[in-house]
């Protein structure tokens, strides 16, 4: 097992190479997925606010409501 990690004496160069690759790829993956989830949440709350707001204004005028819920 230690032979595997030693990599013929090159372990000190091989493992950091794989480490930085994993770090960058996983980091990008997590950051991208997080911003997608955050935007989904924010858009949902904005759209429900807009719906409330247009329902409220509907009580004063009889114009048809325009709810932006076409997702």
């Amino acid at each position, binding site marked *: 097992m230690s032979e595997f990690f030693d990599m013929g*004496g*090159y372990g000190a160069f*091989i493992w950091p190479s794989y480490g930085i690759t994993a770090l960058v790829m996983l*980091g990008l993956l997590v950051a*991208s997925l997080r911003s997608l989830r955050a935007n989904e949440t924010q858009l949902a709350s904005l759209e429900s606010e807009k719906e409330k707001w247009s329902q409220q204004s509907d009580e004063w005028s009889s114009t048809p409501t325009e709810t932006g819920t076409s997702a």
Partner: protein
Amino acid sequence: MPRLHRFANPMRFARLSKAVLPWMAVLTILLIGTGLYWALLASPADYQQKDSVRIMYVHVPAAWMGLFIYVSMAVSSAAGLIWRHPLADIAAKSCAPIGAGFTLVALVTGALWGQPMWGTWWVWDGRLTSMLILLFLYLGYMALWQAYDEPGKASRAAAILALVGVINVPIIHFSVEWWNTLHQPASVFKVGGPSIDPSMLWPLLVMALGFTTYFVVVLLWRMRAEILARRIHVLMMQQAAS
């Protein structure tokens, strides 16, 4: 073009990307898992470079991705400039951080390979310098998007930078022939076919394919996030105006 425009519809894009994503994610795990096993355990050590050759299985695919993503970004930028389609701009913008990440990985793993093989972490040779310029092009492109408040102006400025920077791509490819210093010449994409042994070529190709499907997954997530960000921007403006 009408066929392409059907995919350029944001709603259709959202449906299509949701259908494609799970398959691409599974494929990425399978390919990179197989690639890692092959690269670290099942492939032979090089007769000259010994086990240090295993750095190649991440270094070379990362460098290929850095170039491939740059070309994709430039093509989407051109499509955005010519047809003014917002999805092309969104694709180009979403490419940049992924390409920058892969270029950074190629540079760092290259240094980690250079130290034991060449005796130096860095040398200002043609290949290394032109790859560093590629990283700066990505960073400049991302900075331009940040510099403008209005997406329309930002996309045009960024697209022009992306297109001017394409000149660097053939320079990177031919750098090892024009300035023959420390970096070794091509052994896969060359006249007369690959000169690398199949026992090393196959794990390399599997890893490269895994990096490509990873790119598709992250790109689709970023594009969806960007489409939502623009809707949020519009709704906030409407709210501020009312």
